[in-house]
Each structure stands twice: as C-alpha cells, then as structure tokens.
C-alpha cells in the first residue's frame, strides 16, 4: 500500500471510531445503563443491529461507549506522555552531555524498566482499580518514549546552522528549544503520537480486560471481552465483536501513522517500524 492509500484507509477507519465515540455522547440506539433481561442474548437483527449481551444491553451501543472510553484513556495518556516527555527531551538535548541530560536519560531508563502493566499493578495495589489508574499507567509509560524521540530529533537539529545563527543572535537555550527546535520536530511527535495512541488503545483493552482499568458498569472493550469469555461456548459473537473493534481501531491508527510518516517527511520513510 502506498503512503497515501495507508493514510486514507487508516484515517477513514479510525475516523469512524472517533465519530462513533463522539455520536455516543449525544445519541445511542439504546440505553446501555438499562438492563433488559427479556431481550438478553438476542442475535443480530431487528432493533439490535449487532444483537444484545447477557444483560439485554444493545451491543452496538456498548461498542460505541467502549470506543469513547478507549479513546479517552489513550488520548489523555498520550497527552501526559507528550506534556512531560517533550519538555524533558528538549531540556536533555539543550544540555547535551551535561548532568541534566544524564539525569533525564537515566530517569527514562528507570521508567522503561516498568512496563505499563506493572505500573498499573503497582498503582492498583495501593489505590484500587479505576479508569484513572489505566490513564496514569499508560501515560507514565509514554513519558520516556516521547522524551527519547524529542531528544533524538532535537540533538540533530542543534548542530544545524540556523540554530547556530539563533545562538549568535543571543537567544538562550530555552528560547531556541521552543522557537526553533520544537516546530521542526513537530512532525516526528505527531507520528509518534499516533503510534502511542494505538498502543494506548491496546494497553487500555488489556488493563480493563484483567480488571485494572474501567470498572463496571462503565462499558469498555476490554471489560466486554472479559465478560464474554465465560459465554464463548454458547455466544461467541459477544467475544468476537469487541475484539474486532479493537483490531480495526488499532489497525486504522497504525496505517495512519505509517501514512503520516511518509506524508510529513519522506526522509523518515522506513520499510517497517
């Protein structure tokens, strides 16, 4: 697939889920909070295009609300990662080789040793499970990723002539970082942001699947899968649909990330991630 085709297919796929999540804020086919035992485990069709679950909740509505929580968690986690990681990366690059650089990078290494799941386990063990824990765990995990990408991108820019010119003009390191470095690594950050967004969707699904994320009755894709697991023998569709939603959303974001990389900077073009 060419970069442009990837961008379009990926954009449409993930756009559909963003749209579904946005629409769910104002309208849904059915109320997901209301239990309707009379209509439980209906096959797709009639008033329920994708059927109902064991409590008679409409699967389509559940998937729409699930998209909302997945996207919210992953998006805020990317925000945390960027908000903390980018300034740290800029700081490290501006002080290359100095003690600040060393402190930031060793701190990064330390966080890298804690997979998101382990952070979530630690937080949950002392604060109890909640969707906020999932956001925190994935967000903290994102910090060193953005710090590294930022530092790497910034280091190569610091050697360029126009930065030298800015220094000769008397601008300080902080001002150069914000005015000259940051705009020039924005592309890099957007592409990394898309990748972390898709990893965040996967991580949120995993965390809520094992009960470390969104708590009932809030629908989330991971929770829906956990609840469907015991019924996989009799009602496999309940376990197939949420998983399919995750795959399509993540696939869309990955394709979009690859397409964006090609579109924004042909020099970054890689055969694979």
């Amino acid at each position: 697939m060419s970069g442009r085709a990837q961008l379009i297919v990926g954009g449409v796929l993930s756009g559909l889920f963003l749209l579904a999540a946005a629409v769910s804020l104002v309208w849904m086919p059915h109320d997901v909070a209301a239990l309707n035992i009379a209509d439980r485990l209906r096959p797709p069709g009639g008033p329920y295009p994708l059927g109902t679950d064991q409590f008679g909740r409409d699967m389509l509505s559940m998937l729409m609300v699930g998209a909302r929580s997945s996207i919210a968690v992953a998006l805020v986690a990317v925000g945390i990662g960027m908000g903390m990681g980018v300034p740290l990366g800029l700081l490290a690059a501006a002080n290359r080789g100095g003690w600040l650089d060393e402190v930031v990078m060793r701190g990064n290494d330390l966080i890298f040793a804690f997979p998101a799941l382990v952070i979530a386990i630690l937080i949950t063990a002392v604060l109890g499970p909640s969707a906020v824990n999932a956001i925190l765990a994935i967000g903290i995990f994102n910090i060193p990723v953005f710090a590294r990408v930022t530092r790497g991108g910034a280091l190569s820019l610091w050697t360029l002539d126009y930065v030298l010119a800015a220094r000769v003009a008397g601008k300080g390191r902080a001002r150069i970082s914000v005015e000259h470095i940051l705009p020039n690594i924005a592309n890099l950050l957007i592409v990394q942001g898309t990748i972390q967004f898709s990893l965040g969707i996967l991580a949120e699904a995993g965390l809520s699947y094992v009960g470390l994320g969104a708590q009932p009755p809030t629908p989330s894709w991971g929770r829906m899968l956990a609840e469907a697991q015991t019924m996989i023998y009799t009602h496999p569709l309940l376990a197939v649909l949420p998983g399919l939603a995750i795959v399509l959303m993540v696939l869309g974001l990955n394709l979009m990330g690859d397409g964006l990389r090609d579109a924004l900077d042909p020099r970054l073009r890689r055969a694979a991630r």
Partner: protein
Amino acid sequence: MLRYALSRLVSLALSLLAASVVIFAVIEVIPGDPAAYMLGLNAAPETVAALREELGLTGSLWARYLDWVSGMLTGDFGLSYTYRVPVADLVVQRLGVSLPLAGYALALSTAIALPVGLWAAARRGGPVDLAVMGATQLGIAVPNFWFAMLLVLVFAVKLGWFSAGGFPGWEGGFLAGIKALTLPAVALALPQAAILARVMRSALIETLGQDYIRSARAKGLTQGQAIRRHALRNALIPVLTILGLQFSFLLAGAIIIENVFFLPGLGRLIFQAITQRDLIVVESVVMLLVFAVIVVTFVVDLAYAAVDPRLRRR
C-alpha cells in the same frame, strides 16, 4: 570490552537500586499504614498491631527498606499474608509455569518471524512480501488476549484438540505440560512474531543495500549465498535489540495470557494478591518482574557491544 561491561554493570546496579526505592515507596509509603490497608476497614486494632509487628512495620522507613532489600538478596522475600507461606516458595512454584511459557513463546515467535522476515526481504516488493506485510500489520493490531480467546474458540471448543485452560502440573508428564502451554504460547508468540518479522525484513533490506553485499555479489556469490554469509549476521543486530525490548511486552503479555487460560503462573499470583491486598506478594513479584526487565536490557547491551565493537566507546 571489559571496561564497557564494568560501566554497564555499575548502571545495572544503580537501576536496580532506584527501582527498588520506587517500588518500596509506592507499596509501603503511599498507603500510609500498609497493615491497616491490607486488613481493610473493619479490622480490630489488635489484629492490625499484630500484623504491624509481623511485617516489621514498627521500625523506621530506612530500616524497613534495608531489611526488605537484604532479605531479597538472601532469597528471603517475606511471608505471604494470605497463603501463610514464604513468598519465595510461591514465586519459585509459579515460575515453573511462567518461565516455560515465556521461553516457549519466545522460541515460537523467533522460529516464525526470522524465516518469514527473510523470505519477505529476499522477495521484496513481490506478492510474498505484500502478503507478509499485510499479515504482520494485522498481527500488530490484534490484542494477544483476544487472539487467545479466538484460539480457544477454534482449537478447544470447535475442534477439541486442546483444553480451554488450566495446567496439569509438570508431575503429569512433560508432554501434557507442553500441550497445556501450547495455545497460550501461540497466543503470546504471534503478535510478537509480527513485530519481529517486520524488523527482520527491514534490517535485511537495509543490509542488502550495503556496498559489501554488492562486492560479495560482484565476486560471484548468488543472492542466497550473500544473504547467508554476509547479510544475515549483520541484520541480526537490530533484531537482537528488538528481541530484548520486546521482553517486557512478553512478560506483561504472559501475565494477561495466564489469566485467559487460568494458568497458575506469576500473573495469576499477582492478580490474586491484588484482590486479597497481599502487598508483600505484590511488592516482591513486581520487583522480580522489573529485575528481569533490567537484567535482560543489560544482557542485550552486552551482546550488542560484543557483536558491534563501535558501541563500546561511549
């Protein structure tokens, strides 16, 4: 090389030290009184006092931390509050499931990914390459626990080839154990293999574009010979790094997959410990997981430097 190894060893020790401080702080300082937290709201004050005594919470923070670390260094991880057995025994018992599972998955994903990546790179741009790239793009997007459920649906429910979960124990025979770990290992391995195959492919393509490969071809080697004798070895360097980086994902994945298949491994242990508020178990198992990640990173760093001497100068 020795100097490089020593400097990495120092940073390994520092990382472990820092990680232990973080874990200790989160588990023992944030909840305020761990004993009261573990017992819940309705505990009698005498019970809490007894547990405080048992956990050694009466000493200063500093003394408790030293106690915990020196205990771990000598293999004493404390006593599990819910199981009333040494945590070290629990961990060793559970590792008997988790380690073989992780090893099995690692072996499977490497055995699948390397030939597939090689095949795609050798036929770059052809139908095989396109199919591989499409399949791996999909593989990266599939959550492993969902893939595990689909495997159960097909191979346990429909075909009945494997059981849907559980573990007979190694006492039941090696083959029975391996059979019980097969579906979980495949579920863990395939998404990993997708990433690894992509890395292998792009590393090999990059290597094949190097001048020394052109020289090798010019002196009369076929493409296959050039790949086998020169390109493969060089392409394996980035693959090795990714393999190391993937370790923490493999570990986290194993924890989740164990829950899909009800395997009595470290993952089940830690989730049960969380619901039972057994902080002693959580603290030790988390430290063990982080220890594993840090040590694997260290080993990969060394292996990398052994293969590529340029990295030793820093």
